[in-house]
């Protein structure tokens, strides 16, 4: 690891100032992603600003504004505390399941919500500094495009980058129409709808998200919904646990009789950002919650997939995962 200066602060504005004063500085939260990448020499900050003492650790019901009745989770709350918050478990179980599908107990105890949003891709070419990678070093090319791309994207990629966003938590958040709250250099808050937070690669794959320099994630807000009784997070991976998703699906339904009143579907492991399955949602809205309709919804979404050389299996897997997640959601979202 390259030498770096260690700084810390309890004041958000001075954290932002420190970041602005040194263009090579980075925030340090749980450290589970940035330290790993520094050991690999992929990230090379010369200063780390420890932000874990900032007070953005609350999880609370929102009492005013557009998301009134929803829940606000602190940017620095730990993933474990967020998943196990009693209100989140009761009213937003999809988020609990998605967080718990990620990493391991040890890592979730360390990882923060803000860090989870800003974690970088696990593309092996991104990690290997001997390989070309437009995300790591713009202009060098994409090692994965013609390389081993089994784990890579089937939606929204460009020749510049075919990586996927690795987070499970973010898949649930995009399904639940969450909003990312950040503060910037002027000390003011800005709200970014979750679907606009992460980016597709386009020709700037080095940018994962739409934060502007100096911005700090203070919380994520989830509006109130009626999905708690019928939601499910399904993760398919190479081993039963402690592995990144090949494909994952967050499904949430609001049912009236047998009619689908509201539906949210999002996928992980398929794109550079958590992928909202708009086509499947459109198909299902107002229809009956039947296996046949789930199947057609899955077809509607996956017909737009553009697999790469080694990940054609993700198209069929994605279909089946959508159907299975919707079915589990209809069964009350339990594992039994």
């Amino acid at each position, binding site marked *: 690891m390259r*030498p770096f200066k260690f700084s810390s602060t309890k004041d958000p504005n001075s954290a932002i100032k420190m970041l602005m004063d040194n263009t090579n500085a980075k925030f340090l939260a749980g450290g589970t992603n940035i330290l790993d990448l520094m050991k690999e020499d992929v990230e090379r900050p010369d200063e780390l600003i420890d932000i874990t003492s900032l007070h953005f650790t609350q999880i609370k019901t929102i009492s005013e504004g557009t998301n009134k009745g929803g829940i606000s989770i602190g940017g620095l709350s730990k993933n474990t505390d967020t998943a196990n918050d009693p209100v989140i478990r009761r009213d937003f179980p999809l988020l609990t399941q998605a967080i718990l599908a990620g990493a391991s107990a*040890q890592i979730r105890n360390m990882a923060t919500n803000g860090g989870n949003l800003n974690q970088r891709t696990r593309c092996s070419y991104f990690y290997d500094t001997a390989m070309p990678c437009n995300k790591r070093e713009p202009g060098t090319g994409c090692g994965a495009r013609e390389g081993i791309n089994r784990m890579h994207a089937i939606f929204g990629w460009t020749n510049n980058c075919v990586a996927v966003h690795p987070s499970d938590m973010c898949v649930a958040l995009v399904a639940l129409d969450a909003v990312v709250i950040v503060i910037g250099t002027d000390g003011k808050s800005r709200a970014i709808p979750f679907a606009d937070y992460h980016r597709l690669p386009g020709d700037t794959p080095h940018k994962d998200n739409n934060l502007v320099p100096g911005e700090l994630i203070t919380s994520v807000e989830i509006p109130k919904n009626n999905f708690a009784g019928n939601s499910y997070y399904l993760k398919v991976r190479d081993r039963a646990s402690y592995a990144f998703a090949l494909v994952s699906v967050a499904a949430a339904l609001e049912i009236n009789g047998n009619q689908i009143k509201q539906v949210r579907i999002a996928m992980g492991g398929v794109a550079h950002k958590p992928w909202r399955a708009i086509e499947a949602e459109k198909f299902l809205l107002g229809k009956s919650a039947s296996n046949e309709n789930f199947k057609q919804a899955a077809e509607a979404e996956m017909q737009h997939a553009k697999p790469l050389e080694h990940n054609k299996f993700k198209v069929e897997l994605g279909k089946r995962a959508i159907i299975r997640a919707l079915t589990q959601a209809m069964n009350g979202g339990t594992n039994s």
Partner: protein
Amino acid sequence: MEIENKKPSLTEEEKTLFEKLMPEDMNEISALGVQRRHFLKLITLTGGALFVFQMLDRHQIFAQSSVDPALNIVKAGSIENSVNVAFRVNGARKALEVDSRMTLLDALRERLELTGSKKGCDHGQCGACTVIVDGRRILSCLTLAATCEGKSVTTIEGLAKRGALHPVQAAFIKHDGFQCGYCTPGQICSAVALMTEAKNGEASYVTANVRAKATSLQLSDDEIRERMSGNICRCGAYPNIIAAIKEVHSGKDVVQTWQFTGENNQPTFTTGG
């Protein structure tokens, strides 16, 4: 010759470097007070020199040999980006000056002589370095020592109390929850924390219904497997690890998956656990 004798012993920086290159020889070297000239010879002989020059400015190594030690420039060669940090380890207060890059794992192993916690992957992928910080299991390889100010760390060395093994330790022995033993300190620390998590009713990805109110849980084998998935065992001692954890968690005896040879000296096996 006289001047030679006045040469300072290794600077802090050189010691750190040496620790990195050849941690196993470090104790011997500090104990014997190896001199700098000898150190330079050593690192050259070990082929570490090239690596050293990448890490240290060339003049940092050689400057001192040509400078009168009376000028006392030792400080200049001391730990780069040093951070002072004080925390508790197994109940005892420790204060250290560390390089900002030093992980908690390296601080425990290389500075505090607590080598129970193991470095398997150093990248968060195996769990061998698991320790308990402020009651929660974490990975010490992805934790900077500098961030541990005021915290309370428990390692495998701190679990036994007054000579009595922690119940999880005893159960690992009874159930033969290891083969080579490398993953074991991490497995045990992880399992100890898991007991508290289950008592608090924390959910896992395989929990039947996460919406149910959190109450003390009786964990199934599947639950134990999922909750222990952050600890990889290359020897594959998993069935025995689960048996050990299940026994402590349930408070009831669990049949061993193995037994000593039977009365007629024939090996006997059971399929319990």
